[in-house]
């Protein structure tokens, strides 16, 4: 047990401390491109120099705040769309016959095991100007000019919902599968309409599954890089992409560090929430 503990401490926790440290450094034209925080001033005094400029910069340039706000909006709406598509699927799978259930579950898991990059790539082929969707619509005569879909916010939403859907279905299914369906029959016997029974019984009982699945979509989607970079076009401002560009294109490591720290501060409450939901789920299962 000590081994994984030390491993995670060294390669997961300590790195965040270093990011924090570098987010307070000056940018330098050197390798690595930042200045040390601690400096010997004279012979016997060590000076710590904390530079808040990187953070101040993030709050003065509208680009960063806009990117943060937009990332949250995109992640939130994508999570909602995943729920709308994924809940009926998880519900249907949980209520299918056991043999069919295994096959359907396998069909949900399969895309999840196939490369994310390749699945996002598939949407480029579907959405581009001479892509599959435009070709089909044109040949059916529904449209007369190709629609612009690729490199728009629409394409980005489609990509995120598509890629994260299995992450929502699986925990939700695991939760619904344990449900006692006799409760629904009892409710219907007592005169409840199916929709009413769903709203009053199924929905509240599957709360933990909904929360766990939503969190598995929302948290990584806020920092998503690949999908906005490939489908979103140059104007798709997402914070993960901003961080990537600061780091790789501008070589502004301290600014990238500050972006990472702010993003982390934003997401930690959600991660803790997720962990407590998970703990309740496993406690309930035993």
């Amino acid at each position, binding site marked *: 047990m000590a081994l994984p*503990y030390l491993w995670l401490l060294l390669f997961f926790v300590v790195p965040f401390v270093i990011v924090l440290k570098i987010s307070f450094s000056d940018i330098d034209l050197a390798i690595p491109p930042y200045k040390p925080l601690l400096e010997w001033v004279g012979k016997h005094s060590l000076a710590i120099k904390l530079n808040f400029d990187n953070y101040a910069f993030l709050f003065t340039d509208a680009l960063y705040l806009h990117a943060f706000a937009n990332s949250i909006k995109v992640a939130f709406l994508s999570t909602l769309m995943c729920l709308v598509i994924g809940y009926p699927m998880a519900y249907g799978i949980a209520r299918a016959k056991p043999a069919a259930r295994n096959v359907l579950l396998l*069909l949900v898991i399969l895309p999840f095991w196939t490369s994310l990059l390749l699945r996002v*790539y598939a949407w480029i082929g579907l959405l581009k100007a001479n892509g599959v969707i435009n070709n089909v619509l044109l040949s059916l005569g529904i449209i007369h000019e190709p629609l612009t879909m690729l490199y728009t916010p629409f394409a980005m939403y489609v990509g995120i919902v598509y890629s994260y859907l299995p992450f929502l279905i699986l925990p939700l299914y695991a939760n619904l599968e344990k449900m006692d369906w006799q409760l629904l029959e009892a409710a219907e016997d007592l005169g409840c309409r199916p929709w009413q029974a769903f709203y009053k019984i199924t929905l509240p009982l599957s709360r933990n599954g909904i929360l766990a699945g939503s969190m598995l979509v929302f948290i990584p989607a806020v920092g998503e*890089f690949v999908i906005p970079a*490939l489908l979103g076009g140059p104007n798709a401002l997402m914070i993960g992409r901003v961080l990537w560009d600061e780091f790789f294109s501008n070589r502004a490591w301290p600014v990238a*560090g500050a972006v990472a720290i702010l993003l982390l501060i934003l997401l930690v409450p959600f991660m803790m929430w997720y962990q407590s939901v998970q703990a309740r789920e496993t406690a309930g299962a035993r």
Partner: protein
Amino acid sequence: MNYRSSFFILTCIGFGFAFLYIPILSMVVFSFNASKLVTVWDGAHSPTLKWYYALLNNEEILDAAWISLKVAVINASGAVILGTLAGFGLARFSQFRGRFTLNAMTTAPLVMPEVITGLSLLLLFVALEQLIGWPAGRGITTMTIGHMTFSMAYVTVIVNSRLASFDTALEEAAMDLGARPFKIFFVITLPIIFPAILSGWLLAFTLSWDDLVISSFTSGPGSSTLPMVVFSKVRLGVSPEINVLATLTLTVVTAMIVGVSLWMARRARLDQGA
């Protein structure tokens, strides 16, 4: 219990699966298309295997695939060892110092945005290099360490949940009969949780094989992985060879998943029969 599903639910499932599978199947279909335009079907010369030959002769992609394979195998093996130990600790010992931290540290990587993990790992490697001279530069080693850190979290979850639903009476009986804890682990516990370990290995392999973001941060010159090469190609638009790559990936994944689930179903039947 009855298994009736309303028309509404069936429609939703139908649309949902169409949404999940149409993009994947379109890649398969167009991998046989002769036209370089990829999505415009060239009926006169298709279906063809020409892009399959092109892919198998593409040095850049083959080299990258070889690096990805090496990283993925080492990563999966390491992640399984670390993840099994962590999962075992969490499932078997309800009270120990650091349990809360270990639990948090194995849950967080599951949801942590990859750009944060990637950036922080890179900065760690740079700082370590300055401090102790290791790792000298970045490449396969640093990438593998990065991959192990996040994929062991998945193995931990799988092993932990398998152990949670496992009858400890077997272990206790062995202990009563005088077996040492070490022997019990290898003779009783390990064979029972073997399916979970196998799933964990396969998942860790896949996560590493697919990873773009953490690899980009932690790799060095000359160690581009397959996803990094694919990403730089895809940024320039569609390419018929990528469709071929997707089709091959899909074939391997399907064979693997179907094979493993049939094997597990058989094993479960044998266990019940015994």
